């Protein structure tokens, strides 16, 4: 691809790009500042707590609650980033040319329609990946410095839809879905609404499918009630169960209650004698494996959408 083709691709969507670059820079810088502030506040709080043995008089200003709240906003922004980037940059690639009736000229001037489409989409794909990755890195820091968790070494599945390299992968998949929908519906706003609905359906389906897959492979994990939750290391927990210490059989809480009733809980609080409470889930160490699997599915979706967009552009009338 020539430099001219890259410049042209950027000029065609300069307004959207300008808004997104500004928004991505804002979200990333805000995330880094929140992470830094949270980390400082937490360090000062922990030092005070260790010195006095109590959290009385250890209030930091702004408080850990404030950082947690701001971190929540940053993570919400990061979660939405791939969808906003993909939809708003992907839909107009073909739909705008057709709506403005310039597709005929553009396609005639290019050596082939496929080449034209690739030249339009490739620079956008690079921008989308770079911006989503920047936001993903910022959000990764926010998760790792969560003031109410110990996630700095291994965040595992914590906030896994709003941080790290899932963001660029998702953004790329949404971009190509949006390009395909924009090629089929020759008006930008209806195409955007349809692409939004299609994306929602695809991601809800993917989320349900991944949860079912993970549930099928989930296994019992010992519970070590730490300061910040049941199991350390950011696992994905689907259920709580009891393991029979004698036989090793794992019984879900519902099944346990149905089998033994209230008698098993004499004081209503403690676990039953002879059983150990366990969490059923996927350990945080397997995060990379599962993200790779989800990325592979999204990659296949992106390829299929890209191929569909190519077929539609090659076959359709330019108006």
């Amino acid at each position, binding site marked *: 691809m020539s430099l001219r083709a890259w410049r042209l691709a950027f000029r065609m969507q300069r*307004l*959207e790009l300008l*808004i*997104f670059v500004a*928004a991505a820079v804002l979200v990333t810088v805000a995330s880094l500042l929140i992470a830094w502030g949270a980390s400082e506040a937490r360090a000062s709080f922990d030092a005070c707590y260790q010195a006095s043995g*109590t*959290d*009385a*008089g*250890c*209030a930091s*200003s702004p*408080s850990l609650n404030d950082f947690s709240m701001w971190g929540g906003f940053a993570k919400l922004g990061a979660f939405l980033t791939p969808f*906003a980037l993909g939809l*708003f940059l992907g*839909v*107009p690639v073909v739909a*705008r040319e057709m*709506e*403005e009736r310039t597709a005929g000229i553009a396609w005639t001037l290019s050596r082939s329609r496929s080449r034209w489409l690739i030249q339009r989409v490739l620079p956008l794909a690079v921008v989308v990946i770079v911006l989503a990755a920047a936001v993903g890195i910022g959000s990764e820091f926010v998760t790792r410095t969560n003031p109410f968790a110990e996630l700095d070494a291994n965040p595992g599945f914590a906030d896994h839809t709003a941080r790290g390299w899932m963001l660029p992968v998702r953004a790329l998949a949404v971009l190509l879905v949006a390009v395909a929908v924009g090629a089929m519906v020759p*008006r*930008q*706003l*209806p195409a*955007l*609404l349809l692409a939004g609905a299609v994306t929602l359906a695809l991601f809800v389906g993917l989320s349900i499918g991944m949860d079912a897959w993970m549930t099928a492979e989930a296994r019992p994990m010992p519970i070590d009630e730490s300061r910040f939750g049941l199991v350390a290391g950011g696992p994905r927990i689907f259920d709580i169960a009891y393991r029979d210490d004698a036989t090793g059989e794992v019984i879900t809480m519902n099944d346990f209650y149905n089998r033994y009733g209230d008698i098993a809980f004499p004081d209503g609080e403690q676990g039953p004698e002879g059983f150990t409470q366990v969490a059923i889930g996927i350990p945080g160490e397997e995060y990379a494996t599962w993200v790779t699997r989800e990325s592979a599915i999204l990659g296949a979706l992106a390829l299929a959408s890209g191929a569909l967009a190519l077929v539609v552009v090659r076959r359709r009338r330019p108006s």
Partner: protein
Amino acid sequence: MSRIGSWLVLSFRLNRWEVLASAAGVALLAAGMIWFTWQLRTLAAAEPACLDPTTYVVACEQSPQAFYELASFAEGLSSVAWVAPFGMGLVLGVPLVSREIEQRTAGMAWALSRSRTSWLVRRVAFAALVLVSLLFVLAITSEMQAAAQMPTRHLDQDFAWYGRRGGLLVVRGLAALGVGVLAGALVGRVLPALLLAAFASVLIFTVISLGMDRWIEADAVVMATGDPEGGRYLGERVELPSGELVDYGELGRRGLSIEVIDEEDRLFARPEDVGHPERMIGWGRSLIVPGRLYPQIVLRESAVVGGAAVLLALAATFVVTRRRPG
């Protein structure tokens, strides 16, 4: 065809995709709400005594389960009803001017019209008519669903689901329409204008919401902490022995921090201070706007949001009369 008829047909043709998408969305949402209303009323009618949270009936240990499970799904729809006015307002408002500019038909449309202002009024009036009609349906169905979900409460004097039911949906939609039209007129391209309008809406409505909270603080009463049924919760406060009411941020700035709260909501800095009232920091309190003020507060917010809609419409008119058509 009459003038009104031709105006309706032309306006619909220009925006048919957005109108159809909005109508389809509202039809789906309203149908879902009516279905949930019917199901919830059927369940409530079967055992009405079981749904009153203020009384305990021994036979009711299992039966409300189905009701509350269904109600939690229904609550999802009410969240969509909360977002709908913003989404529909922007989708209908943004393309009114921006699409004409983007497709380079604005010059012709403006030249053929008596004035740019009358052209804009005709376009906006149609979008507003569609929006108000659709949101009116949503306002009614969301009220019906809320009443079915909370059968023991008097929702005309209750802040439950504030902004997710009733007339506020319509007024917020009109303001979002104004944001959309203005952004479209300023930017002149559909998708960038939609993006900008979405960001602007978040900003404007956050400011209005925070402003309203500050305004209604004057009407709030200080109550013991707990669930203020029907009231609007504005936050936690600490009532100092001097009678002064401060928030937790101010408490921190004064170097005070709370370690223990006793059963009478008295706040202490250290466990050993409990039992020594003279060492108490203060009492934990909630700032609540009473439910009986609900109609008054809705009216106030409607006036503010409606005023914002008028200002936005005026600003859009100003931009359209001044800007170049391409």
